[in-house]
């Protein structure tokens, strides 16, 4: 269990963490998602005790950590830079925690444990090599292995899959979550990749400018994003956001007047808003509100097709099965449909402040 309360951290004039609150449950796999510079790594290092917060508290397993040294916190961390000992072999790097005074294992047991972890990560054949002669992907797996070889109260993983090639990353993503050690251990996992966060996280925390914007299960984050930026962070292609106002009777009217959709939102008339629809929630035909436009471009993505449609002055993208989109040409008129429950309504974005979501949950 990890709990951060009101953690502030500045470096000179730059604010890294600005009152960060975070609660990770026992045994939970928690993904921290955010752009670079949002404070993800600082958060991990604060939990590890490598950075001291200017104010705020860090608790691990209910115990205040403010006077506990990093080596006594019992957490293991995988650094984004790997931080492997360059003068030692891959084996010695993996063995390092097991030779330390606090996690020492007899040499034979350590060897068995290291071999097991190395096999799991597919680096069993590389153990004798100096880490200088490993590829980045291999180094990253050694770094992950150094975390997994030892028991820990928490694993702190800083983009541990970022340097693997696409295929291996997908495979390791699946395996990582299934590992016994990871399932049993509280894990705080940092990433900038929303697909990774959705795939791995029991819960996800979205971090921005040193603050947690939203935490929740993947469903909560996906269906009830707190603001436009969270909505934009998840899903490729990105969510469609159409600017407009709420007119009389709770009807959304797009900025150019070409589009009217009833949204029944509890807002004053003439409020400037953004209407959000995810590309996979738009269909060609079927029940729901209808929007008419013309095809701009289509792009085949294997079994499905990404269609970009012009609605008045706006473009929206949608993903439909290939069968539905066959025969669509540029400039063909199309009728798009969306179920009312899949519509998201946001306040208009203002500079430096993304628009909040309005209204009750869509689900």
């Amino acid at each position, binding site marked *: 269990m990890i709990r951060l309360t009101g953690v502030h951290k500045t470096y000179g004039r730059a604010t890294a963490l600005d009152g960060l609150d975070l609660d990770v449950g026992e045994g939970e796999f928690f993904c921290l998602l955010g752009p670079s510079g949002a404070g993800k790594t600082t958060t991990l290092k604060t939990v*590890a005790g490598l950075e001291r917060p200017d104010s705020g508290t860090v608790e691990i397993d209910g115990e205040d950590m403010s006077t506990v040294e990093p080596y006594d916190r019992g957490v293991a961390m995988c650094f984004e830079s790997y931080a492997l000992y360059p003068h030692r072999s891959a084996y010695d790097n993996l063995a390092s925690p097991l030779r330390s005074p606090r996690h020492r294992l007899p040499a034979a047991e350590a060897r068995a444990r290291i071999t097991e972890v190395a096999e799991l990560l597919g680096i069993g054949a590389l153990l004798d090599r100096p880490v200088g002669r490993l590829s980045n992907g291999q180094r990253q797996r050694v770094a992950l292995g150094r975390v997994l070889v030892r028991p820990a109260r928490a694993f702190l993983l800083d983009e541990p899959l970022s340097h693997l090639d696409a295929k291996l990353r997908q495979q390791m993503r699946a395996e990582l979550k299934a590992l016994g050690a990871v399932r049993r251990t509280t894990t705080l996992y940092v990433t900038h990749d929303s697909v990774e966060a959705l795939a791995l996280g029991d819960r996800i925390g979205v971090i921005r400018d040193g603050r947690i914007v939203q935490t929740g299960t993947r469903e909560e984050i996906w269906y009830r994003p707190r603001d436009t930026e969270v909505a934009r962070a998840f899903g490729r292609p990105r969510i469609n956001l159409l600017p407009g106002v709420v007119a009389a009777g709770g009807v959304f009217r797009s900025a150019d007047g070409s589009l009217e959709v009833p949204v029944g939102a509890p807002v004053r008339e003439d409020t400037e808003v953004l209407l959000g629809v995810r590309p996979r929630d738009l269909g060609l035909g079927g029940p729901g509100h209808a929007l008419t436009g013309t095809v701009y471009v289509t792009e085949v993505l294997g079994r499905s097709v990404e269609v970009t449609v012009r609605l008045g002055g706006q473009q929206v993208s949608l993903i439909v099965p290939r069968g539905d989109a066959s025969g669509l040409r540029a400039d063909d008129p199309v009728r798009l449909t969306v179920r009312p429950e899949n519509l998201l309504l946001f306040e208009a974005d203002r500079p430096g402040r993304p628009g909040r979501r309005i209204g009750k949950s869509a689900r």
Partner: protein
Amino acid sequence: MSTGKRLSGVLADLALILYFVFALFPIAWMVILSLKPADQLFSTYFSFSPTLDGYRTVLGDSEGIPFVRFFVNSLVVSVGAVALSLVVGLPAAYASARWRFRGSENLMFTLLSFRFAPELTVIIPLFVLYQKLGLFDTYVGMVWVLQLVTLPLIVWIMRSYFADLTPELEQAALLDGYTRRQAFFRVALPLVKPGVAAVSLLAFIFAWNNFVFPLILTSNEAQTVTVGALSFLGGDRPKYNLTAAAALVSVVPPLLLALTIQRYLVRGLSFGAVKS
């Protein structure tokens, strides 16, 4: 290849040869001088009957000048100064590379100022102090005063080595369960070994070559080769051949040292080479 390029290549070679002659001539001169018999010292430069008598005299403790002892003194004092500087300087360099604290930059600058302030500015007060404290003409006194030479060198150069190491390496060691001290000795220090070798050699040479401190702060017991070699110039007749032989003998230790750690020198003197 064009003739122009070839010509400039030849010219460059010529220039290098000229410089080579210029740089090596004093050494050649010393070798010749050291091989001259005493009665031919002032004869034509290149025609004499060569003899090793000069070396025999210098190493044989004759003429009433204990050159061998000066030589041993130099070794003891230089090695001692470098060793003490390493013991004090490596942790200091590491600390100053990793932590900024109030006055840390001033402290570092003060240390550096020992190097650029002429030794002569402090030598008189030091002389008085050493007389009073009983450090005059002792090993301890010499090792101590040579810290002014070796310590700033070691701290400043090693600081840049440590600064080039990412702190995440030691942080990883902390999370592996090692204390800060163990992280320093097991992770940081082994990675700057080439730097330690290179800077130790440099410091040794600076300490070995120092002239002013032993000149003023020693008289006999702790006197070193740099001052000792000059003793042959005293007396009724300057014995240039003995001074030359003594000087050449005193070149041997730094030279041998440089050759043995040459492997590290190449890596060590190219700063930043320790990055992975």
